[in-house]
């Protein structure tokens, strides 16, 4: 083959089907080696943990609570993580937030005895922003000119700011805190921007649940379909015979949901659940028949000893968990041995035994897969049945109402998902080559499905129905801080991932000299990163001042380490050149959930630092493990 055609072939392969030398990595595998995955798993894990151990952690009130805490922490964590990716630290960031707020308040406070400058807020906002940019520029300038580690230079800035805050407040107002009233010019415009709130109980929407359930179900459905799209081989021509089956499944799901919500009573609910389960499997099967390539021969069922052993052992373990749940008294709060009470021991035994059992069943399923698909289908069905059975055990033996309903439903849904996936896997061919267009479509559908589900949950938190109001639901107040947090995170993620500045940030953090050699403006990039951190500090300062209308002189001091911790928990390395701003946002969420959750669980808050330390350690180890697998997978 001539060299020209060889080159063309390589290019063609790359754009269409991928290199045959490259072992196929499914999109799930590729998702799993992203740096954010540790933080995402952490968020889900910590949330589930606190939901289980506290009474009201999952409620709207508590959700609003930790989201609020996470917002200010998260804005700074996102900015600080960008700086860390660029290879620098800013120890003045915490004090900077307080400084911005105090400076702003001093600008708009009334003149005279009260010591302010009496400026209009319209003037004070851009002035304080300009000061923030100046501080950031100064940090960057000094780091570049002195060539000292940024750790040292920003430590100096930290002390300077700290002193200025205290000194100026005492000098001008005679106190160590500054306050302003709502008579400042422009207050009515600016206050909602930085400290607006949404009172949930004032927004009544009786049609809410239609949208909530609708979006949730449609979102989940789209996610399931997109997972199929990314996993199975597309047929060359679609088989129209699958479409009516698909339609029947959808109709069944609709009917089941309608039934569940219009009737009450155990019998009707059981019927509805059964219809739902059957419809889901039927619908997925119809969709797959229409769209994906079937397998000719899935093999015959064989039960070898290597499969039977873990299978039986797994079932025994799950059975033991069930027995433990019935035999051990769940009412008994006596302490057996520190730190376990009888009921604590029961919970731990149930979780441990069921987890071991599940793991063993997974081992059996994997071994079955190596044999043939029919065997795997049987093993998976048994596993699904075990999970469903365990769900009923929980329902029968759990004291806490939410376990009986919500945990029960989750387990049943998990069993259903496992069963449906096994059925599909036994009948349709799994993809072994790259199909870029299928992956693209699948990822977009997945994102759409997730967005729908997020929208559903958001609607549920933001609005109340008349019925809930009458029943006396607690008020919940959402602050505009969260919108700032989401917007800021989105912008920073976009900048880091999609712009030249983002590429240059990774470059100067990874190998500053190499970056300079190819013409990247390293000093300018780093200075801009310091200015981003300052800008974020300004935003947080504004949010703090407007909410409280007053700030302590010491506001923000010491918090810079929390920002760094959140960034590290999220997956950013301390050494620069590698990291994720989205992860930092999740890291902030994990920390906020821990702080709020510990209070909600009525633990002794003295121990919260122990808990945070343990989380930090686990997060760092997990991120390291993921990164090693990611590098290894690419070698």
């Amino acid at each position, binding site marked *: 083959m001539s060299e020209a055609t060889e080159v063309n072939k390589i290019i063609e392969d790359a754009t269409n089907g991928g290199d045959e030398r490259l072992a196929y990595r499914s999109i799930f595998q590729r998702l799993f080696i992203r740096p954010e995955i540790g933080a995402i798993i952490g968020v889900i894990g910590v949330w589930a943990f606190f939901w289980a151990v506290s009474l009201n952690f999952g409620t709207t009130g508590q959700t609003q609570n930790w989201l609020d805490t996470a917002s200010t922490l998260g804005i700074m964590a996102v900015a600080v993580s960008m700086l860390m990716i660029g290879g620098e630290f800013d120890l003045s960031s915490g004090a900077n937030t307080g400084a911005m707020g105090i400076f702003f308040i001093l600008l708009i406070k009334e003149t005279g005895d009260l010591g302010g400058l009496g400026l209009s807020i319209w003037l004070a906002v851009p002035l304080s922003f300009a000061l923030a940019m100046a501080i950031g520029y100064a940090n960057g300038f000094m780091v570049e000119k002195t060539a000292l580690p940024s750790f040292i230079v920003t430590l100096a800035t930290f002390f300077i700011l700290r002193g200025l805050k205290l000194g100026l407040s005492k000098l001008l107002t005679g106190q160590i805190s500054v306050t302003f009233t709502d008579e400042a010019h422009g207050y009515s415009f600016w206050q909602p921007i930085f400290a607006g709130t949404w009172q949930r109980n004032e927004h009544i929407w009786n049609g809410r649940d239609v949208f909530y359930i609708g979006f949730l179900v449609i979102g989940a459905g789209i996610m399931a379909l997109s997972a199929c799209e990314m996993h199975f081989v597309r047929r060359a021509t679609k088989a129209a015979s699958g479409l009516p089956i698909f339609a029947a499944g959808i109709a069944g799901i609709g009917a089941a949901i309608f039934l569940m919500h219009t009737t009450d009573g155990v019998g009707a609910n059981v019927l509805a659940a059964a219809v739902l389960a059957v419809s889901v499997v039927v619908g997925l099967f119809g969709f797959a028949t229409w769209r994906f390539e079937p397998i000719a021969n899935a093999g015959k069922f064989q039960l070898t000893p290597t499969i039977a052993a873990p299978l039986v052992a797994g079932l025994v373990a799950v059975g033991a968990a069930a027995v433990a749940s019935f035999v051990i008294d769940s009412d008994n709060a006596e302490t057996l041995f520190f730190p376990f009470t009888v009921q604590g021991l029961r919970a731990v035994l149930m979780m441990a035994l069921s987890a071991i059992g599940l793991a063993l069943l997974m081992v059996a399923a994997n071994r079955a897969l190596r044999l043939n698909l029919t065997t795997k289908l049987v093993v998976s069905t048994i596993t699904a049945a075990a999970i469903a059975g365990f769900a009923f055990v929980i329902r029968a033996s759990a004291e806490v109402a939410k376990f009986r309903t919500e945990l029960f439903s989750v387990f049943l849904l998990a069993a259903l998902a496992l069963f449906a996936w096994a059925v599909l896997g036994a009948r349709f061919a799994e993809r072994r080559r790259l199909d870029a267009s299928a992956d693209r479509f699948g990822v977009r559908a997945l994102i759409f499905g997730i967005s729908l589900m997020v929208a559903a949950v958001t609607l549920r938190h933001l609005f109340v129905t008349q019925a809930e109001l009458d029943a006396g639901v607690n008020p919940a107040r959402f602050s505009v801080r969260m919108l700032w947090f989401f917007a800021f995170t989105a912008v920073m993620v976009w900048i880091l991932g999609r712009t030249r500045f983002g590429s240059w940030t990774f*470059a100067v953090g990874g*190998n500053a000299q190499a970056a300079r050699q190819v*013409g990247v403006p390293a000093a300018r990039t780093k200075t801009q990163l310091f200015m981003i951190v300052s800008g974020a500090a300004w935003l947080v300062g504004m949010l703090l001042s407007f909410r409280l209308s007053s700030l302590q002189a010491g506001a923000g001091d010491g918090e810079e380490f929390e920002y760094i911790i959140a960034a590290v928990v999220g997956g950013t390395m301390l050494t620069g050149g590698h990291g994720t701003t989205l992860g930092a946002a999740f890291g902030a969420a994990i920390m906020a959930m821990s702080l709020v959750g510990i209070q909600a669980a009525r633990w002794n808050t003295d121990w919260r630092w122990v808990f945070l330390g343990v989380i930090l350690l686990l997060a760092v180890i997990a991120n390291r493990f993921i990164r090693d697998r990611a590098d290894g997978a690419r070698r």
Partner: protein
Amino acid sequence: MAETHLLELENLSKYYGNIIALEGVSTSVNAGEVTCVLGDNGAGKSTFIKILAGVHQQSEGTIRMNGEVVSFKSPREALNAGVATVYQDLAMVPLMSVWRNFFLGAEPTKSVGPFKMIDKATAMRIAKQEMAKMGIDIRDPEQPVGTLSGGERQSVAIARAGYFGARVLILDEPTSALGVKQSGVVLKRIVEARNQNLAIIFITHNPAHAYPVGDRFLILNRGKSMGNFAKDDITQQELTALMAGGSELQELQAELEEAISGVKK
């Protein structure tokens, strides 16, 4: 004969305090030619490169491009003038992906409203294409460049320099860390680049690599020029002798022969 060369160096000198890194070095290179700069370690080759690449400024002497005096105050200026340098350490960021490294500092952009973002699809496609032309099949442009072999990384760097419209390509010891086959590949690339009318300055300490591809040879020894020869005026053996300092090499050869024959007996 007063011809205008694409790049001409006249009496280049560089002093660091009282250390003479380079003194009175002159050479030239034309489009479609390879000028080899040879010398052992410590001869001043790195300083020579850094001056041409715009990292340092010369203490004395002039640099001319197409007859006009130029002075590069930063790597960016050198790049803009068409002088691209491929460094020994390759100037790659190991944790970043291949395509990002390829386009570092010159990423293609597309405008989304008032904002400019990187045109990632184009960048990945071009990176894979350019490297396929070099005969390097990058399996996945997203993989970190640190996972490539030394020869592949060298090829990425050369492909990068060539793609960005260099008129003069300076290669700093490209074959030093490579095996025989990979070195052959790189030398082939050099010849191809020369055939595309680039001017190449090829810096090496290996006369066996330099002689086949070079049209002109500049030998450096301890900061001074030992001569600036056209290919017709010197043989490979003479080149090697000049580089190693002639008599020293003969003595070494004699000692080696003695040692070997002593062992055999």
